[in-house]
């Protein structure tokens, strides 16, 4: 415990440096804007802005990019409450009661509860992260190739289980991602795989062009400007403070949302989206007045907003401690750390304490900054929502092209981004979620390396995965999840995933 506090002090000595503070502020500001603007989510935002961090050191880069991630969770609520359009996917649930509160003239109170709930949940998440990540990293030092293989399998199965689309569709996307991840030179044998004599493909397909194409350009292709409309009136500052009854009604949902969100955040999948739905469902179930949900229930704003912020912090635990992404956003953050020569994982705490603890401490500061940004400046952010989408998306297309090109100064990457944009558009039309594809792409090199090393170690027997206790437990958990999914499919049970899919489609569950 004492060591943790000493390390945290080291972290604050890094995070409170004026230059680091500046980049934390920039990240939070850009993240809020990314969250507010419909059509550009945290993943596309982080991917497009990744090249901006190339001139920075690893600490400033990760502090800024993480600020964009958790800042977007704050910003998403503004658009949801004022326009009933989710600024980003995790704010879908906030649309329902947040906008109902706004229509009752309580927009200011809804925004304030969302911001305060987000701050409490975000800070709670960072506190738990502070104490959980280092021991988990120490434990992960026991992992060899079979354990990593089993952990990655569990991650993919968990992602498929938690997905709102079907298990088969999710696994298909993950398999496609794994396949794309094998493009390039095989590091163990030197074979060129599917590179078609294009030298740039020798290094494989980068995550940035794929993520920007699927989530940035793909979204723009599917959103003609005439579909984006909305009149918005900013609330006045004096209307921001909730009354005593609203505070009372939001206290417990914030507490429950924080705990639930953090726990779900650790699990692979689109945790911040799932957590907000789970929190909404929980609050509705335990409420004494469930009939108020959908008509402006305070708990319907406080719970989901807290949960999605806690989840976005929880997702950093496996990323920092194990070096494993739980979703596409953490995958891009891992890529960002690797670009700066800092491999995340069990050795990060000891090898790069400044980066690890500076990052953790910056999240305490960042959450405070976001609270200070989001409440007084809500009027300014709302003004941005008035920029017509017809003028906004050409700007985003330009940033997609520059962002991707600047990573490697490779025009091939831009072609890949364009192709992925078309693929993303097609996947959307046919009801496929592209997130598992990105995750598959990111874990492919690690998965392939650990799988092949395991098989070489065992002299060709697959039993090695069942002979080692940690990998056995992880694979047993994977099998359990597959069985649970099979039971659900056989009984055709309409569980929470079906309800979340319905909510994401814009219908009230």
């Amino acid at each position: 415990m004492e060591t943790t506090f000493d390390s945290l002090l080291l972290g604050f000595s890094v995070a409170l440096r004026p230059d680091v503070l500046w980049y934390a502020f920039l990240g939070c500001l850009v993240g809020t804007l990314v969250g507010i603007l419909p059509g550009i989510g945290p993943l596309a935002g982080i991917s497009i802005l990744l090249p901006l961090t190339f001139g920075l050191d690893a600490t400033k880069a990760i502090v800024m990019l993480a600020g964009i991630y958790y800042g977007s969770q704050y910003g998403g609520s503004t658009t949801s409450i004022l326009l009933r359009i989710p600024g980003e996917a995790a704010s879908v649930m906030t649309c329902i009661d947040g906008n109902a509160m706004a229509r009752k003239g309580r927009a200011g109170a809804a925004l304030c509860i969302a911001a305060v709930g987000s701050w409490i949940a975000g800070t709670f998440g960072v506190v738990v992260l502070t104490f959980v990540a280092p021991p988990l990293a120490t434990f992960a030092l026991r992992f060899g190739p079979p354990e990593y293989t089993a952990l990655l399998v569990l991650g993919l199965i968990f992602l498929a289980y938690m997905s709102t689309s079907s298990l088969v569709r999710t696994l298909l996307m993950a398999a496609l991602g794994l396949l794309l991840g094998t493009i390039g030179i095989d590091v163990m044998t030197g074979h060129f795989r599917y590179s078609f004599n294009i030298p740039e493909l020798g290094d494989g397909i980068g995550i940035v062009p794929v993520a920007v194409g699927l989530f940035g350009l793909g979204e723009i292709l599917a959103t003609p400007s005439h579909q984006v409309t909305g009149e918005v009136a900013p609330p006045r500052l004096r209307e921001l403070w909730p009354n005593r009854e609203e505070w009372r009604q939001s206290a417990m949902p914030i507490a429950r949302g924080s705990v639930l969100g953090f726990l779900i955040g650790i699990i692979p999948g689109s945790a911040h989206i799932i957590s907000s739905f789970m929190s909404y469902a929980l609050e509705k179930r335990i409420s004494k007045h469930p009939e108020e949900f959908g008509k402006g229930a305070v708990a319907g704003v406080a719970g989901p907003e807290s949960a999605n912020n806690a989840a976005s912090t929880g997702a950093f635990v496996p990323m920092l401690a194990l070096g494993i992404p739980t979703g596409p956003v953490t995958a891009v953050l891992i890529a960002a750390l690797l670009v700066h020569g800092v491999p995340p994982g069990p050795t990060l705490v000891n090898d790069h304490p400044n980066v690890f603890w500076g990052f953790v401490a910056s999240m305490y500061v960042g959450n405070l900054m976001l609270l200070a940004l989001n409440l007084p400046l809500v009027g300014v952010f709302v003004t941005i929502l008035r920029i017509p989408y017809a003028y906004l998306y050409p700007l985003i297309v330009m940033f997609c092209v520059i962002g991707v090109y600047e990573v490697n100064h490779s025009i091939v990457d831009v072609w890949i981004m364009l192709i992925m944009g078309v693929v993303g558009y097609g996947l959307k039309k046919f009801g496929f979620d592209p997130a598992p594809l990105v995750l598959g792409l990111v874990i492919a090199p690690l998965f392939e390396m650990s799988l092949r090393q395991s098989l070489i170690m065992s002299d060709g027997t697959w039993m090695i995965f069942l002979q080692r206790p940690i990998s056995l437990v992880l694979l047993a958990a994977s099998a359990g999840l597959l069985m649970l999914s099979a039971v659900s499919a056989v009984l055709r049970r309409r569980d929470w995933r079906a309800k979340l899919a319905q909510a994401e489609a814009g219908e009230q569950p």
Partner: protein
Amino acid sequence: MPREGKGEAVTLRTDHVAGGAFVAFGLLVFALSGDLPFGTVSEPGAGMLPKLAAGLMMLFAVLIIIGARASEPFATINWGDGGHAALVVVITFVAVWFYQWLGFLLTMSLLVFALLALIERRNLLRAAAYSIVVTLFAYWLFGKALKSPLEHGLLWF
């Protein structure tokens, strides 16, 4: 959902098309993997994971085709945004094609202008002014503030 009994024509559904496309893609991957050795279990080769992943992808695609009856008919897909999507892709394609030759300033201002003028039918003067201002801002941000080398192209600055 209408049932397709004996004697009725089978309706082409979205999952038939999607699953079929993934099976075809998997077959293409196998066709392109001829020179990649699968290896043995004790000495896995460079072709092991790609072939396993392609095989799994085809398996899941077949499962999707088998369960396709639950999906929407292919004819019901709304392609109303297709024109917008196609125009954005074509304009971006042309911009990327000329990017290294024309350079950052010319290409990006033409890209933004084309999107505004051709797709959004905005006032040409306003579209031109907007595209020049945002391109100059991006040039300052990337090229000057962040000292990221941008393509010079014809203009040499």
